C-alpha cells in the first residue's frame, strides 16, 4: 500500500516539476490526467479499503489508551467473563476481537460502526472519553445471535428454555443475553486489579 500511495505521490510531484513541458504534448496531457485524476482516485480507493480493513483489528482499537483495560480484560484467567472466554477459546478471530462483537451487523452496519468510531476519536479530542465508557446503545442480542443463532449448543442449552428464559425472547431482544445471572459478566474492568491473567505468546493483547 505504501508503494501505491508513494508511487502516486511521485507521479504528482513529477507533474508539478515538469508540468510546462508536459502540457505542450498530447502524451504529456494524458500523463497529467493520469497523475491528477486516475491514479490518485485509485490510490485513495485502495487506501480507504486498506484503512477500513486495518481499523477492524484488535491492535487498532487498543491503540487508544482508553481501550487498554478492555484489551487486558480479554486475558482474565476466568471462565465467566464473556469477552475473555470468547478471546481465549478463539470463539472470535483474535485479530478482530473487538470488531467482531461490537460491530453493527445490519445493512450499512460497517459504515455505522466506522462513523461511531470516528465519533469516539472526536469525543476523545474534544471532551475526553467519559469514565466509565458506555455503549451508545444497550448491547444488542443480534450481535450474539449473528454467530450463535442456529448453533446446536445455543438452541439445545437447558438454560435457554426455562420458565424465565425462552429462545423467542432472546431472538426478539426482549431478554438480553447479558442479563445478570445469564451472561452478565463482561469486561469486568473494576476487577482487573485483582485478576489473574492468561499468559500466552499468541495473545494479541499483552
Amino acid at each position, binding site marked *: *500500500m*505504501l508503494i501505491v*500511495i*508513494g508511487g*502516486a*505521490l511521485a507521479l*504528482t*510531484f513529477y*507533474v*508539478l516539476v515538469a*508540468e*510546462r513541458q508536459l*502540457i505542450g504534448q498530447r502524451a504529456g496531457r494524458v500523463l*497529467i*490526467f493520469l*497523475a*491528477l*485524476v486516475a491514479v*490518485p*482516485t485509485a*490510490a*485513495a480507493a485502495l*487506501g*480507504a479499503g*486498506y*484503512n477500513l480493513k*486495518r*481499523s477492524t*483489528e484488535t491492535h*487498532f482499537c487498543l*491503540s*487508544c489508551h482508553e481501550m487498554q483495560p478492555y484489551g487486558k480484560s480479554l486475558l482474565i484467567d476466568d471462565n465467566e467473563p464473556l469477552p475473555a472466554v470468547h478471546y481465549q477459546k478463539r470463539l472470535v478471530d483474535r485479530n478482530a476481537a473487538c470488531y467482531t462483537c461490537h460491530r453493527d451487523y445490519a445493512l450499512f452496519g460497517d459504515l455505522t460502526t466506522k462513523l461511531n*468510531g*470516528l465519533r*469516539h*476519536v*472526536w469525543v*476523545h479530542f474534544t471532551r475526553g472519553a467519559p469514565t466509565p465508557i458506555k455503549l451508545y446503545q444497550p448491547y444488542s442480542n443480534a450481535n450474539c445471535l449473528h454467530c450463535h443463532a442456529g448453533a446446536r449448543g445455543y438452541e439445545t442449552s437447558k438454560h435457554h428454555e426455562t420458565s424465565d428464559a425462552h429462545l423467542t425472547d432472546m431472538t426478539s431482544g426482549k431478554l438480553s443475553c447479558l442479563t445478570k445471572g445469564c451472561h452478565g459478566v463482561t469486561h469486568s474492568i473494576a476487577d482487573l486489579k485483582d485478576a489473574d491473567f492468561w499468559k500466552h505468546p499468541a495473545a494479541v493483547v499483552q
Partner: protein
Amino acid sequence: MISAAADDRSVRAAALLVAAGLLVELPSVVATTPVTFLVFVGAGIPLMAAGCVLFAVHLWRSLVQKGVL
C-alpha cells in the same frame, strides 16, 4: 480564452492539492491508528478530491474553449 499562465496555475494548484492529500494519507498506510484514520478520511480524501475536481473543471473549461464540447 484561457491563457497559458492560467492553464499553468490551475494544473499546479490541482497537483499541489492532490500531492497534499497523498502526503496526508501516507502515514495512515505506515501505521493505522484512529488518528491517522481520521486524518485519512477527514483531510486526505477531501484534499485529493478538491485537486481532482479543480483539474476536471480546468479540463472541461479548456475543452469548451476549444469547441470540443
